[in-house]
């Protein structure tokens, strides 16, 4: 008869080896370079992939178990939040506009991160790096999904949430996050890891997540807060992977250092330009503020990032060259960016407004050297004009930076009264930049950036109208046609917050929830 032999339970380490590196194999009937065609062309030299230290000992079966548990909790809270009309508990309806930006500008990036890590995982010849990238790819997919599910609740009640995937590929301000990630995923696997795994996830992610998640907590948005917390344990893993990857590359060959340094310089700058939208969100869009952008920058970049770069100094890595310019910009960034969205608020899927007097006092206090001198006069003028029924909208499309694709709104480092203009000619064509750093990025790879899809230039080429539009028809209104192409509902999604449908509905519904009339 058969004897039941109790199976020997595998130790954690054994199990880990079997379930990760042991899944790899060496090629036999194809040369390795053909199987991993993207491993060498960036110039990074790796001599021994076995030296890769796995930053987290997690196997796929354990991963599914943890994530499933988190999902159950998350969806229970989201259900409770939506069934109890949780949306009426947020501080005021202006807050929702911050969440619209999150859905249109951040969630699609989670999906792109999924694609990028899947590609990097396929491209790396080392099994350890492959497994880590694969898990992060799945995390990123999960983040996109949980964000969409959490925020879909708001789409039932408020404008501007209805077509974020369509908008991501078209709307002018979304070309900034889109081009950021398109740049990263069209780079090789090593640059992608330095760009997203290290520069974004490790150096800058706190400046994205803390403001949004704490902002949600401060402003009564339990749905957003919950997906934020659910993603947080993943983020910790992602940060560890980014750091491990950098250290591994640098330890493999001294020739890797200048390449990695150039990528860090590039991606820290690109990341900071991308985060300028978070700066304005923190200082202008949260009815209940968490902290100022400047304070967040000082804690998360200057202090934490400073310590990180000190730690990396033993590999020869230096603080990115752009740090000095960012230090000069931190007193100005949020005001300049909010002013830009106020200029072009007619063409966004979210509302803009001028701060109240109380809020201006908060800004004066947080930015004592700049707000009253440079920005308060402008904002008070706009508020007065709006009260007279003459709300300011810029009537002409702006000039854009060829690299970051942001309107050329940034001022000269050290002179906040002058726009910073930089230009260069390449193969007989002129290109313009918002900064020396954006110009350097172009100069390093002009063949890549000459192809930039700049929304303003595309509109003027006639490429941003709905199919079948005849621009020569009498009475043709180009702006209306562009907004239709964006699938933006004119008069509902865009423009001034005061008196908008969101504003009126929120006040009416909250009134019904509190009173018996």
């Amino acid at each position, binding site marked *: 008869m058969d004897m039941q032999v109790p199976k020997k339970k595998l130790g954690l380490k054994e199990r880990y080896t079997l379930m990760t590196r042991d899944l790899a194999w060496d090629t036999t009937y194809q040369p390795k370079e053909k199987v991993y065609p993207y491993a060498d062309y960036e110039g990074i030299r790796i001599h021994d992939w076995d030296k890769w230290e796995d930053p987290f000992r997690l196997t796929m079966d354990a991963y599914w178990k943890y994530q499933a548990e988190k999902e159950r909790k998350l969806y229970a809270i989201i259900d409770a939040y939506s069934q109890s009309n949780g949306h009426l508990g947020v501080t005021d309806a202006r807050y929702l506009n911050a969440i619209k930006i999150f859905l249109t500008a951040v969630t699609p990036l989670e999906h792109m991160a999924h694609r990028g890590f899947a590609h990097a995982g396929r491209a790396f010849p080392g099994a350890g790096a492959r497994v880590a990238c694969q898990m992060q790819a799945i995390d990123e997919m999960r983040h996109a999904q949980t964000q969409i599910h959490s925020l879909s609740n708001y789409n039932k009640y408020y404008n501007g949430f209805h077509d974020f995937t369509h908008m991501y590929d078209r709307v002018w301000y979304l070309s900034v996050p889109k081009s950021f990630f398109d740049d990263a995923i069209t780079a090789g696997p090593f640059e992608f890891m330095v760009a997203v795994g290290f520069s974004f996830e490790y150096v800058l992610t706190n400046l994205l997540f803390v403001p949004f998640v704490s902002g949600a907590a401060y402003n009564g948005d339990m749905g957003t807060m919950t997906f934020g917390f659910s993603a947080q344990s993943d983020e910790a893993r992602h940060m560890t992977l980014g750091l491990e990857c950098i250290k591994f590359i640098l330890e493999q060959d001294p020739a890797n250092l200048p390449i990695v340094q150039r990528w860090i310089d590039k991606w820290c700058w690109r990341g900071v330009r991308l985060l300028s939208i978070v700066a304005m969100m923190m200082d202008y869009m949260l009815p209940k503020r968490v902290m100022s952008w400047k304070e967040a920058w000082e804690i998360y970049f200057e202090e934490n990032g400073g310590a990180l770069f000190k730690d990396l100094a033993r590999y020869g890595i230096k603080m990115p060259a752009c740090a000095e310019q960012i230090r000069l910009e931190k007193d100005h960034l949020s005001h300049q960016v909010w*002013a830009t969205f106020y200029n072009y608020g007619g063409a966004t899927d979210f509302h803009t407004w001028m701060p109240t007097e109380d809020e201006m006092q908060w800004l004066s206090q947080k930015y004592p050297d700049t707000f009253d001198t440079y920005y308060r006069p402008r904002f008070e003028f706009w508020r007065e004009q709006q009260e007279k029924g003459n709300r300011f909208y810029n009537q*002409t499309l702006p000039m*854009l930076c060829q690299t970051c694709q942001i309107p*050329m*709104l940034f001022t000269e480092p050290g002179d906040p009264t002058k726009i910073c203009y930089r*230009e260069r000619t390449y193969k007989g064509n002129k*290109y313009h930049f918002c900064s020396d750093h954006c110009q350097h990025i172009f100069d390093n790879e002009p063949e890549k950036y000459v192809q930039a899809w700049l929304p303003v230039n595309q509109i003027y080429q006639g490429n941003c109208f709905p199919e079948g539009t005849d621009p020569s028809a009498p009475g043709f209104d180009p702006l209306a046609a562009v907004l239709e192409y964006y699938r933006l509902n004119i008069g509902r999604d865009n423009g001034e917050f005061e008196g908008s449908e969101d504003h009126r509905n929120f006040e009416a519904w909250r009134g019904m929830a509190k009173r018996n009339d």
Partner: protein
Amino acid sequence: MQVAAVKDYVGVPRDVVDNFHGNQLVFIGWDDHLMFCAPLAFPFPPTLRFGDIVEKVLPGAYGYHPDWAKIDWSKVEWMKSGEPWTPHFNRSLAENGIGHKDAIRFRTPGLTGIQGSCS
């Protein structure tokens, strides 16, 4: 290095003048008036008289600003690609040497925006 790529790779510039249906792009910025958050982009035919931009186009773009009506055009200082430059109002863009995607700035001495804040 022109680009990092696995094989020979040449990018196709997306904004060459031929793509603008007879127009060229011209960028115009009004110094010390940051109420207009960035320089403006316009598609103009190269035959357009420069004076027509100032007289017919810019009022629609900048007229909202209280300083606009106060400009003394005989004192305005112009720059092209960051260098001092003098336009001829009665000549066309092409005759003025304004090429595709040129950036032009003008400064209006004595006018520095809302309460002198360069807004």
